[in-house]
């Protein structure tokens, strides 16, 4: 993820907390949050992942005016390439990619008003054989989130896996 400006906003935190089923008032009620130890609204521990919203090139978001891999009139709007070519699957991205691991280290927790930047570096990559899904290709990335003062606030390590076959279960 390459993000220049990820503005952390209270309404985004509220919607994110709702989506993970967390009614904790510290994520939506500024008055109540003022009386807690953090002293203000903070973001839930996994909120920083929503920085994808601010990555202009994020590939899992439809781009205005471009074909999208999801369904419309057809099951996918991306035409398959030449049969037999390396990317003859219409779904090269997304369909076989799964999230294998996610690790966060918190130097501090995020608050509305923070403006983050994020830089991602590739980590290790390795392969494994699986009876259920064929060859598994793992790829690690490390993302550093810095605040408006250049301070490191969260370090995230993510491992993605591409499976040979769909995994059912």
């Amino acid at each position, binding site marked *: 993820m390459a993000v220049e400006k990820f503005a952390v906003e209270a309404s985004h935190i509220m919607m994110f907390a709702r989506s993970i089923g967390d009614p904790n008032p510290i994520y939506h009620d500024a008055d109540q949050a003022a009386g807690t130890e953090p002293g203000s609204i903070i973001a839930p521990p*996994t909120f920083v992942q929503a920085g994808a919203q601010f990555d202009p090139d994020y590939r899992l978001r439809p781009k205005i005016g471009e074909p999208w891999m999801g369904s419309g009139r057809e099951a996918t709007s991306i035409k398959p390439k030449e049969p037999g070519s390396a990317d003859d699957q219409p779904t090269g991205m997304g*369909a076989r990619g799964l999230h294998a691991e996610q690790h966060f280290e918190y130097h501090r927790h995020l608050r509305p008003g923070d403006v983050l930047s994020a830089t991602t570096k590739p980590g290790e990559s390795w392969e494994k054989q699986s009876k259920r899904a064929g060859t598994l290709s793992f790829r690690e990335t490390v993302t550093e989130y810095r605040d408006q003062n250049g301070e490191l606030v969260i370090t995230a390590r993510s491992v993605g896996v591409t499976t040979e076959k769909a995994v059912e279960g």
Partner: protein
Amino acid sequence: MALSASQLNVGDTTTKVLVDDLSRTQIVQYAGASGDYNPVHTDEKFVTEIAGYPTVFAHGMLTMGMTGTLLTDWVGDGRLTKYGVRFVNQVWPGDTLTATAEVTEIREEDGQHLADLTITTVNQDDTPVLTGTATARLDP
């Protein structure tokens, strides 16, 4: 609200039902909030006809986010210093998820009391869907 090192013991556990009968709508809600619109999570036609799965499935990060509510309910707001997980099985609409955390170590680092936890989230068949660890700051 926060835990105190003098009152917490290795082996202490906490458990929470994270969701009962996970809805496709909650998965859509998470897609919108997180910005991850991968159609395998929300698009029945794409996921069955193109990706080859029986139906849509939840984002791993939705399970990690829901499991995080168990941790923050227990250790207090803003107290986590580390939280990491592996996604070991997929989560499907209709699943009921239960998370458990256990204290594995209580220690002191640079004058700060810390607790290390292990975490497991299972579905209605008792199959683990997420395993992980976390570290939280404690009061003395």
